[in-house]
């Protein structure tokens, strides 16, 4: 299944990338997605367990993904 992945702020800078798409096996979880992201160039500077959101909602590493989901890796937030 195809998953859209979005990167922001320092993570986007480190990867030189704001969006990508990854193909994962059906039933894959956030943990599986993060293993796939870890292979991208520049990914060594990302934390192993970043905050993530699935379809704009914070999610845990065990969350199962569905085809077409949008997963965002969320650096430490600093609004206000």
């Amino acid at each position: 299944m195809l998953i859209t992945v979005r990167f922001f702020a320092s993570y986007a800078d480190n990867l030189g990338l704001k969006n990508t798409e990854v193909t994962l096996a059906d039933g894959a979880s956030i943990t599986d997605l993060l293993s796939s992201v870890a292979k991208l160039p520049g990914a060594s500077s990302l934390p192993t367990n970043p905050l993530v959101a699935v379809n704009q909602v914070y999610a845990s590493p065990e969350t199962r993904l569905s085809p077409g989901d949008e997963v965002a890796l969320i650096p430490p937030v600093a609004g206000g």
Partner: protein
Amino acid sequence: MLREVSDQQHGAIALFVGTVRSVNEGREVKAIEYTAYESMAEREMSAVLSEAEQQHAGVVLAAEHRIGLLEVGEASIAIAAAHAHRGQALDALRYAIDEIKNRAPIWKREMYADGSESWVDPTHTAAR
């Protein structure tokens, strides 16, 4: 925003305005560039305002966050809370600003007087 929350039943309107500060962690700041995961930030801010309204019956809130380049002194966020009485308005306002800062996917890149820049990471500093 004050108009948005005002009502003849409301005897109290509390307003919080966050502005770009000239010094952070001992460094002179010239400007801050804010970026956001906009769709999620809007959703998260709405969720926070709903929670505050549920916790404080009768409170009405409004909030706006700017993104893009803001210079020292410019407002980055404003939140207004109205209620019949000041206690509930102030409590709801405090909840809203704290939770929005903790949860809304918004980031700032500080631009310093010496020409350098860096992403602000509140998990690595004392400034909360």
